[in-house]
């Protein structure tokens, strides 16, 4: 009787100790993130429902004014500018992601077929440029695509752009900049998928007289799908919220949602409108994440999709 009692006391003491341990180790970090990220985000959401004050700071009467402005209703009636910006963000994200997939797929495959000792070096070669600050990389593209450079001259010669315009600033420069920026994020997960590719399946397909395309589609592609989906998540979501590249490479006609949001907090001074834009961005992000998860599960990628 007393024995089981002390056991119970001991166990509950151990449980208390474990709980205290959990509290001690996890609280600082959790509190930090709650205080400095969750709280500010909640505040931002609240700002979206306030009215814009004279100095761009939010004021109290709650309203849906900012969402109306976001949809394009202003003093001068309705204008499609913001809708265009949203559509442009989606389109640029799609283009850049597609471009990155087209380049990364053969590259990842190629690396996985090279000799063991070269592979780390090749992966490093792909990743190193992304260690440089993104402002510097965008600046490099500005130098390359400016009017008068060989690349712009070449494009002029082909009649792709009017004379003396240069390839930057333009929507094309933004697409290129985005693809450049996010290429490593697609190569790495695809490489991981190719590295553990089960070649027996490919051989089986070949033995059964599958055409190369069929062999690829049924034996290779499904195996790389988890890597591909992980890559799409890693590329498309940050690309959609990109600020630096459209701002530097896009000019006035190439802006994306991130720029619309940022302007309201720096030059434009309309916090509620910016906050409403941020909410729109978050909604799109979570829809994207959710959709990727669903696709991953349906196509059998299942558990391996990272997010």
């Amino acid at each position: 009787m007393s024995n089981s009692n002390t056991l119970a006391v001991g166990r509950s003491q151990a449980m208390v100790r474990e709980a205290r341990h959990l509290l001690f180790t996890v609280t600082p970090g959790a509190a930090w993130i709650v205080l400095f990220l969750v709280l500010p985000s909640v505040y931002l959401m609240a700002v979206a429902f306030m009215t814009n004050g004279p100095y761009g700071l939010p004021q109290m009467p709650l309203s849906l004014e900012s969402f109306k402005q976001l949809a394009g209703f202003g003093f001068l009636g309705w204008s499609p500018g913001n809708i265009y910006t949203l559509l442009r963000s989606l389109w640029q994200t799609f283009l850049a992601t597609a471009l990155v997939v087209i380049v990364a797929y053969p590259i990842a495959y190629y690396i996985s077929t090279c000799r063991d000792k070269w592979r780390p070096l090749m992966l490093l070669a792909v990743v190193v440029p992304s260690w440089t600050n993104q402002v510097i990389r965008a600046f490099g593209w500005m130098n390359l695509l400016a009017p008068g450079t060989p690349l712009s001259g070449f494009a002029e010669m082909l009649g792709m752009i009017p004379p003396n315009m240069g390839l930057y600033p333009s929507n094309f420069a933004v697409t290129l900049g985005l693809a450049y920026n996010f290429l490593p994020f697609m190569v790495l997960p695809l490489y991981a998928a190719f590295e553990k590719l089960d070649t027996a399946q490919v051989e089986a397909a070949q033995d059964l007289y599958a055409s190369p395309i069929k062999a690829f589609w049924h034996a290779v592609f499904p195996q790389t799908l988890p890597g591909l989906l992980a890559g799409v998540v890693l590329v498309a979501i940050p690309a959609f919220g990109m600020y630096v590249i459209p701002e530097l490479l896009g000019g006035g006609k190439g802006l994306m949602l991130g720029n619309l949001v940022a302007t309201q907090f720096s030059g434009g001074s309309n916090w509620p409108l910016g906050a409403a834009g941020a909410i729109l961005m978050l909604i799109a992000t979570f829809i994207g994440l959710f959709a990727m998860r669903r696709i991953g599960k349906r196509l059998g990628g299942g558990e391996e999709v990272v997010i």
Partner: protein
Amino acid sequence: MNKRAMRRGLTGFWWLTVVFLYLPLAVVVLFSFNASNSAARITGFSLRWYHQLLGNEQIMSAFSNTLILAVISSLIALVIGCMIGYGMYRHRHRKLGWLIILIYLPIVLPDIVFGISEMAFFVQFHRLTGMLQPGLTTMIIAHVTFQIPFVALIIYSRFVGLDPSLFEAAKDLYASPVKRVVHFMLPTIKPALISAFFLSFTLSVDDFVISFFTSGPESATLPIYIWGAIKKGISPEINAIATLMISAVALAAVFSLMFNRRRA
């Protein structure tokens, strides 16, 4: 035959991609040694832009701000992230879904939303309390926030990779938890600590958007300075600063290669 042609095509595509990846960086490095201030034509070799850097006080203060920010934020994130990583490991049998969501939040949140929420929060907080004026302190807070998850995940995965019986053995060997931490835990996770520190450091130096929105007038970092210079009109000095930052990255790449070789 067909296979060989495909192989050759792939090799060609690989080198083309390498050129694509390094061309923008190479252009910046090349023009940093340009004698004239033209951004389109090379007229000769000179180091004048580097000389001008040394005399530019704004750049020097931006440089020291970048370093201070990166070192301090990485150290704070290392301590906090390490604790959370260990807590996640030790209590991994419990339901910690809320903690996982909390840890993924800074990673998933778009940079721009992250940056402006912090900015809006700090500005209002300062208006109400007079504390936390936008500057280095607010930048450090923001950087620590996005570094914690990466540190926590690296440390966590290191612990998961360890043999659980090691913890029992350590318990038997060392009576006090402090001794256990000093003699067993810290030495075993040392490689993870080092890589977590360097990752945090790189993330901090690499960040522009979040720094930009949480900085004050006195606390510009190098990326913020470069951004301003680009916006004002391209100045050849930018090439020189950018080249120095690219060299730092190249050096880091060589180190990481050597580190990997030694481990292999």
